[in-house]
């Protein structure tokens, strides 16, 4: 039976990770920075290993400490980490420290003879199924792959504390600041989404998109170039293989060509509407209802009709 470990740099990701861990069976050991164990227990951890908190440290600095915990308790072992940016850095470093195979952004994970996980490849055109053969497997889990277990505040378990093992090479953090133009919106959970692509000519024209979204009581989403490149909307709003994978009832794609990398994120929507001025745009292959037309004409007209 594998030893299962979970770790995240974001507290909010523990419930899903613990659910993924529980699906693999066996005892689940949550590694947490600091002394708050109650939350991990209430979502299914059987043991919590507390790592000493120190604001001056980078999350990556905990790699040798985590590696020591995993090594000490033996193999086979699976380390599940949230697929955040720091999580992926920790995963790769653990991969070398523990001589472990690493899979990032897993959308599913299964135990058995080696851990098997799925991960999108070729920009979302296909799904790769990979099996880890090494004694330790390190997997970063994409968000939304597992439903958290019901919270049970009565659940308790063993608490262990680990000593900090300093990393051999350390990077000095000179400054840490909040990111501008970032938001806490989670369009992965939105029921309705109005999404805009490069058909938009100027940032000011977002007003027209926001109007339609408000008439539909929807969140605003976008394609990657609108968020990254143009910087017109926050990163949290772009849909696709490297962005958010939506589960909405309604997805309205405006001026989006429908490249596979985008559609992989949009395909989870129940119904897809699309407006594009090019009748050959691939988006129409993925849409339930499509209108070949100019968003500058169609979007204000749609808003007016919906408001009537």
């Amino acid at each position, binding site marked *: 039976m594998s030893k299962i470990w979970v770790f995240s740099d974001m507290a909010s990701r523990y419930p899903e990770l613990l659910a993924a861990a529980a699906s693999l069976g066996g005892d689940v050991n949550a590694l947490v920075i600091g002394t708050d164990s109650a939350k991990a227990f209430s979502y299914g951890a059987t043991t919590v290993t507390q790592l000493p908190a120190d604001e001056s440290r*980078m999350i*990556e600095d905990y790699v040798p400490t985590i590696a020591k915990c995993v090594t000490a308790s033996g193999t086979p072992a699976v380390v599940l980490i949230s697929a955040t*940016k*720091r999580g992926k*850095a920790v995963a*790769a*470093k653990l*991969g*070398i420290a523990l*001589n472990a*195979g*690493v899979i*990032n*952004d897993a959308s599913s994970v299964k135990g058995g003879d080696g851990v*098997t996980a799925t991960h999108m*490849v*070729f920009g979302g*055109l*296909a799904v*790769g*199924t*990979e*099996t*880890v*053969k*090494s004694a330790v497997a390190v997997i970063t889990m994409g968000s939304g792959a597992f439903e958290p277990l019901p919270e049970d505040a009565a659940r308790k378990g063993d608490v262990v504390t680990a000593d900090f093992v300093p990393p051999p*090479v*350390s*990077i*000095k*953090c*000179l400054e*840490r*600041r909040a*990111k501008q133009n*970032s938001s*806490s919106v989670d369009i992965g959970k939105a029921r309705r989404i109005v999404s805009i692509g490069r058909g938009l000519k100027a940032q000011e024209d977002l007003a027209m998109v926001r109007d339609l979204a408000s008439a*539909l009581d929807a969140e605003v989403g976008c394609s990657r170039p609108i968020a*990254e*490149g143009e910087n017109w909307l926050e990163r949290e709003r772009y849909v696709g293989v*490297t962005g958010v994978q939506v589960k909405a*009832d*309604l997805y309205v794609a405006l001026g989006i060509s429908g490249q596979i990398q985008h559609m*992989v994120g949009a*395909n989870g929507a*129940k119904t897809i509407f699309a407006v594009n001025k090019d009748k050959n745009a691939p988006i*129409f*292959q*993925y849409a*339930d*209802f*499509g*209108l*070949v*037309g*100019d968003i500058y004409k*169609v979007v204000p007209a*749609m808003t007016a*009709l*919906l408001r009537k």
Partner: protein
Amino acid sequence: MNIVACFKLVPEEQDIIVNGDRTLNLEKATPKISLYDLNAVEAATELAAAMPDSKVSALSVGGKILENSKARKDILSRGPDALYAVIDPALESALPRETAAALAAAVGKIGSYDLIICGEGSGDLYAQQVGLLLGSLLSVPVINEVSKITAGDGKVTVERTLETEVEVLEVPLPAVVCVTADINTPKIPSMKAILAAGKKPITVWSVTDIGASTGGAPVVMQSILAPAQADRKKVIVEGDSDDKVAAFVESLRKVL
């Protein structure tokens, strides 16, 4: 400053055919520089331009795809002074760990380096690990999600853009950094650069030449399959006249 820019050649996605059994047919796909590695090469070239006496080496490891002369010329027209390619059947569909091990060995053979720059992820596997694994194998500082690099004396100062924070980090050299797609906008090579590319040195090695060991892969790929396509109604109307928009909105109302 000696800079190594790591890039991968990947099949052009537009040319990939999905077979009836959901497997992929890559035979007709032309090789291209992996999209986000253009940012790595551009970052290397820009940094070199800002530092006197700098050299940029482009490095790639892989299978036969690296024999493609157009792709070789393409990479050299984007600024690097030299190209190093490790071509070996053993690397044909290598996963991140084997790739990183080969890159580490190749870097050793190239000689000294100050900074290795990788992209955020390769266009085919998008494993987002090779750069991080490479830095760890070389036992040098390594950091991902770098959105800005400023050269200093024996160090670089980088900005790292995370989900909600930006970190400003001081990284002692030698080091490996993995850059994000928005660190720069890759320039389109000029005619002059394209012509000059043909005269730049290309070094080709095999796995044996660089003394890399293959085998003992910690991860194996079991299958690569296109997802089953969601069934869509595909009711497409041409034209944006008032009545067509009204009908479109009617369909929309039905699902609200």
